């Protein structure tokens, strides 16, 4: 058995839900559709008739609505996995930094700055790289 502390972490990390069997089951149809987007012809078919394509893959009403609204947090909630949602996002011209902004409520510029701020906090670009710093940010 997975130990209870690890199971608790699946839903216990702030701002994070780990993709496990519960979510994988919920999201199978949505992720199957996204997997189909590896083929250019399927991307074109989706763009030609979004809702029809979603129905063809058996998405639930909730999943179809999340896709129609481009609502990434809702897509995660209904079982979408980010590796597969990234293929859907690509059809909309969105990259993972756009996805980051959509999930955090930041603008894309703010999201990019958030990464740069973390780099500055870590001393990146100030010549301190490689300095040993064996401190955990999160107790485990």
């Amino acid at each position, binding site marked *: 058995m997975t130990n209870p502390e690890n199971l608790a972490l699946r839903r216990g990390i702030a701002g994070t839900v780990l993709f496990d069997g519960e979510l994988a089951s919920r999201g199978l149809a949505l992720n199957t559709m996204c997997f189909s987007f590896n083929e250019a012809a399927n991307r074109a078919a989706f763009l030609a008739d979004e809702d029809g394509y979603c129905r063809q893959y058996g998405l639930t009403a909730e999943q179809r609505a999340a896709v129609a609204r481009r609502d990434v947090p809702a897509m995660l909630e209904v079982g979408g996995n980010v590796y597969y949602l990234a293929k859907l996002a690509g059809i909309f011209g969105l990259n993972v930094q756009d996805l980051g902004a959509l999930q955090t409520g930041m603008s894309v510029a703010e999201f990019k700055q958030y990464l740069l701020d973390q780099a500055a906090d870590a001393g990146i670009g100030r010549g301190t790289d490689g300095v040993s*710093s064996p401190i955990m940010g999160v107790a485990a």
Partner: protein
Amino acid sequence: MSATIVGGYFSSHVPGIGGAIARGDQREAYWKPFFDGYPPVQRWLADARPDVAVVFYNDHGLNFFLDALPTFAVGAAAEYPNEDEGWGLPVYKTFAGDPGLSWHIIEELVGSDFDVTMCQRMKVDHALSIPFELAYPDADAWPVKIVPIAINTVQYPLPSPRRCHALGQAVHRALQNWQDDTRVVVVGSGGLSHQLDGARAGFVNADYDRFCLDHLAADPQALLRHSAEEVAAIAGTQGVEILNWIAARGALGDAPLCEVTRNYHIPISNTAAATLVLASA
């Protein structure tokens, strides 16, 4: 006989790196601190002359899907093509395989109670290709054959760091018993800390990343005390790609290693990116 393990090469594999290479952005201010980490890798590989790379990586939905997802999968194919991963980007060069060595590794793994999936047809995605694009930027054809070993880092339950390290150790035993002195480089692809999904998207943890970089060579046990879930808490949901580095470290064996080069940079896209070479002493 025994294969000659020349060392380990570890690299991040963000898809955007492929885009930067295609655009020729290596010297742009955003990318330069990252790409500057690779000339030492290229020089080391030119000197070490590996024939085969045993590559630990995670597939992002090119060869495998969530409907039938192996925890550990070993390629045993004569060739490994890349294909469209959904974004219509240029396709990476096909790798040649070494089926004889693949089956030998599979025999050792299953004999050691690692019941792996065996793949005679296997596509490899950016996670496998990008470290080689970075290491051999001018190659018309890849100068090494590969044995790809895919680890599930996407759908929980994931294998633990301890189990991934033991998998690597079993691969090491297989290399020690190989029929000739094939020169082998072990590759760990992915990481370091990053998170693509959820309200915590964009999270990185330089302290944990430096801890990993500092301990991987001399004290890999330090990285094994966390569960996969704990690594996700510490290093982000995709920070669990460190499992590939941990498995690769196991495949290097217990003999002393020396650090040839190291680079660490934040950010590449949403990721804290790292490059490391550990040579057999």
